[in-house]
């Protein structure tokens, strides 16, 4: 039932004791990071100031802006030669953020994911297919190493090519699949087209879904369609990637591994802790990382901690379903997108006005992004030039966002104006 029984079944006092021990170690280790060293000096903080968990509050929050400002290696707490892997998340204003790993970090990360997968009933006899994007996206390599760590036959199917995905599922006897929720719906459609009945013709019984907001109804529908149990997972590249928090078989909240992270939930406006059980922004402190520990990192994800004990016997706090973001980040097909990224690209085109509208919609169970732009001046009397403009905008947006939007030129003045607070994003996606 437990892969790491000792760690998973720690009682609350035991968790806190371990956290304090690891926090002291982490804060000491942070002195090796140029960024934290300077920050500690600025506020007159010394690692010895951490005597209780409460003392963590003496340290200021770390933000994504800090990660950008120290790009690429200013956060590192070890010399570069000790690092073995780099992941990067897309940049909001040109500068991406970099996450570094030592071999120990990668091992711990794989262990954490293995723990999660074991928790939902997966064993070394399972066949695990990962339809997540590989490369910089941590859902790819993260699950690959975690699933292998558990000893499963692991198929790096990667994203897309749905017919091939279905063929892998049937031919290789895939029992567990990791997919973003909207893609699970898409796979079901493709199975239908191919005449594959997921219940009769496949061995699929476990689905790991995450990286994209989805409702309880959507989960139940996926389970019903594919004849599986679907478990929600949470992670972010700043915290390694997937494996930060995961649902147990109770499917009631995501256990966040408190031996690896200290959890705070704050009011994003006042930055004070919210009352117990209230929704706020998740703030995480890493307790088990070498290359790049992060202290009080503002995730911008809104959630709350579920009250009470979980019947599964784990005392690690349970995060409720995520309620959205405290910034304007959009999650589309598992990819994080900030409207400012779209804006920055569009502003390079002199042909366009400063107004634009991003619409997210579900078309044939696929989530799509429509970007409407206004022609500033009619710079041509030629269709070909208008079409090549559309193509060029699409191309540049795709390069920046890693998803391909549909770009539509509309009449000047028909989009919400930029004076005041214009609506730039309309989310019409069906979370069903």
């Amino acid at each position, binding site marked *: 039932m437990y892969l790491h029984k000792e760690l998973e079944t720690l009682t609350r006092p035991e968790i806190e004791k371990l956290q304090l021990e690891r926090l002291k170690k982490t804060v000491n280790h942070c002195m090796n990071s140029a960024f934290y060293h300077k920050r500690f000096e600025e506020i007159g903080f010394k690692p010895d100031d951490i005597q209780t968990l409460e003392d963590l509050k003496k340290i200021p929050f770390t933000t994504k802006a800090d990660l950008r400002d120290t790009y690429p290696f200013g956060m590192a707490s070890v010399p570069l030669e000790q690092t073995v892997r780099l992941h990067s998340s897309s940049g909001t204003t040109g500068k991406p953020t970099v996450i570094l790993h030592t071999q120990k970090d990668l091992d711990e990360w794989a262990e954490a994911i293995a723990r999660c997968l074991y928790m939902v009933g997966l064993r070394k006899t399972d066949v695990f297919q990962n339809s997540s994007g590989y490369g910089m996206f941590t859902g790819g390599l993260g699950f690959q190493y975690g699933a292998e760590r558990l000893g499963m036959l692991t198929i790096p199917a990667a994203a897309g090519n749905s017919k091939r995905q279905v063929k892998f599922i049937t031919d290789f006897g895939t029992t567990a699949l990791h997919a973003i929720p909207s893609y699970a719906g898409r796979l079901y459609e493709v199975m239908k087209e191919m005449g594959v009945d997921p219940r009769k013709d496949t061995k699929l019984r476990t689905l790991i879904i995450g990286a994209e907001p989805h409702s309880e109804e959507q989960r139940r529908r996926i389970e019903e369609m594919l004849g599986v149990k679907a478990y929600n997972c949470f992670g972010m590249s700043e915290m390694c990637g997937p494996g930060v928090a995961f649902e147990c078989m109770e499917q009631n909240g995501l256990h966040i591994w408190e031996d690896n992270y200290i959890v705070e939930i704050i009011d994003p406006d006042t930055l004070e802790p919210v009352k117990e059980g209230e929704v706020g922004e998740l703030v995480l402190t890493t307790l088990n990382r070498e290359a790049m520990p992060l202290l009080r990192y503002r995730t911008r994800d809104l959630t709350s901690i579920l009250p009470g004990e979980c019947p599964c016997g784990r005392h690690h706090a349970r995060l409720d379903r995520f309620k959205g973001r405290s910034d304007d980040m959009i999650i589309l097909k598992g990819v994080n997108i900030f409207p400012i990224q779209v804006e920055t690209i569009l502003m390079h085109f002199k042909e366009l006005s400063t107004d634009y509208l991003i619409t997210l919609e579900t078309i044939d169970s696929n989530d799509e992004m429509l970007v409407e732009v206004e022609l500033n001046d009619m710079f*041509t009397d030629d269709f070909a030039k208008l079409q090549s403009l559309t193509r060029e905008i699409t191309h540049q947006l795709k390069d920046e966002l890693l998803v391909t939007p549909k770009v539509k030129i509309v009449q*000047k003045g028909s989009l919400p104006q930029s004076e005041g607070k214009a609506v730039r994003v309309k989310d019409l996606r069906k979370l069903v």
Partner: protein
Amino acid sequence: MTIHQLSVFIENKPGTLNEILSILKSADIQIIASTISDTVEYGIYRIITSEPQKAFDALKAKNISVNLSDVFAISLDNKVGKAADVISLFANAGINIEYMYSFLIKEQGILVFRTSDSDKTCEIILKHKLAYIREADLSNQSYML
């Protein structure tokens, strides 16, 4: 050798054409010829008028995406095969006609078109003594609709 043409970006939805025509009406602009080309999402409304600059300013003032460009206009006798004769000259010279529209005024056919190569087009018009229309001709009442 060319005349001015207005090109207006219009979205493919009810009311957009009416908006353009109303603005031109208020500005007292006489339309000599016009045509709409469309794709699924948008169209280009091309207009020939006796006062292109005035029309351009009026549309611009109403925040309409409009372009003023040069096009060729050739007058032909209204007889069978005349258009074919003219266009074949360009075709034989390897010049592409990007778009064309035509209308009739006082028994004369008028071809308005844009080509891939303006210089070569001029040469051919001069060489074959084609009856081209000048901007000034448009102000002449004889061409008014």
